């Protein structure tokens, strides 16, 4: 399963929307419930799902799902 596919699974669970379709360009503008609180909830869920640990400063400014997926891949690679 690719990072984007697994990320989509987690996002569907966090935002309680089984129909949610996610691409690299998806941002908070397209997901109504994606506010600052749910952003952190998503980050915590992604930490568990991917076995990574985010630094707050790295996730506050993420613009879209693509940037998030790239960050996860970097952390998984030990970057």
């Amino acid at each position, binding site marked *: 399963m690719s990072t984007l596919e697994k990320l989509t699974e987690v996002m569907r669970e966090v935002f309680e929307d089984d129909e949610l379709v996610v691409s690299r360009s998806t941002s908070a503008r397209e997901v109504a419930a994606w506010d600052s609180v749910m952003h952190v*909830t998503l980050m915590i869920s992604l930490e568990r799902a991917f076995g990574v640990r985010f630094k*707050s400063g790295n996730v506050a400014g993420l613009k879209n799902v693509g940037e998030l997926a790239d960050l996860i891949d970097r952390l998984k690679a030990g970057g």
Partner: protein
Amino acid sequence: MTRAQALIAYVAEHHPRSSRGLEEARAVNPEAWDGVAEQFLSWAEGVWGPDGWQARCVEAFVVFSNDVIMSQARYEADGHYESSSFEACNAAVYSQREVMDDYLWGVFITNFCWSHHMELSLFFRDRFLARLPGAPAIVEIAPGHGGWGVWALSNRADARLQGFDISPSSIAIASSIAAAAGVGSRATYTLRNALDLATMPTASADAVICSFLIEHLEDPGLLVANIANLLKPGARAYLAGAITAAQVDHIYEFRHESELVAICEAHGLRVCETLSVHPRRFLPRARFLPRSMGLILEKRG
């Protein structure tokens, strides 16, 4: 476009996840919010210039807010604050210029961009500042960004203020904001540990401001004793603290409002008024309600 409108537009364009929180803060009292935001942002513009203040303030605010929510999520998982040592926080945060600069500008913006802190700001302005005596000598303990004390000086042209903070960043930022607000000649900021009772004046202050320091300490009683020591008999203090509200440098975990009240009463202060506020939105399935509490205190004669 006003500065407040420019701030809302900047957040909507660059950080749409934060727009909802801004709307909630303004909804507390739209007219008051427009006024408070404009006043605080005019000082920020005075410091950063007409082209720089939006990015500087909003980016710091977004990172700071994310840090706070992240800390709260980890607190929910662990059941306790992540820090327990003031010295460790001092080494990692307060003495680090770059970290503190972002931190303090972020906190500065929360005064009106977090809904519950907007409520607390109005409590401070309407219930504390409005009732200060004539020509008050104000002491601000740990002014941080300095916004609270500068607000006092802006509202009261007859007031003077002395601020004490252990962070060089605080001294620099508070001084720059006071200058931008045009009250710099009435404000003096000194690099000093305000908890060192032996170096602080006794019974000299007509008012003390101490906003969100108490939860950063290992021994909050020492701070309250210091506030009581500074105040003239019958003079008033404004104290704000956090309750089950985590941050990377929060140490003392107040669980209930009564703990803050009791610690003040135990040190010769009468609790005149309190306000406990909380955010409009919480982490899903949270067990803790993060609160901020303001207390107006009076030194018993």
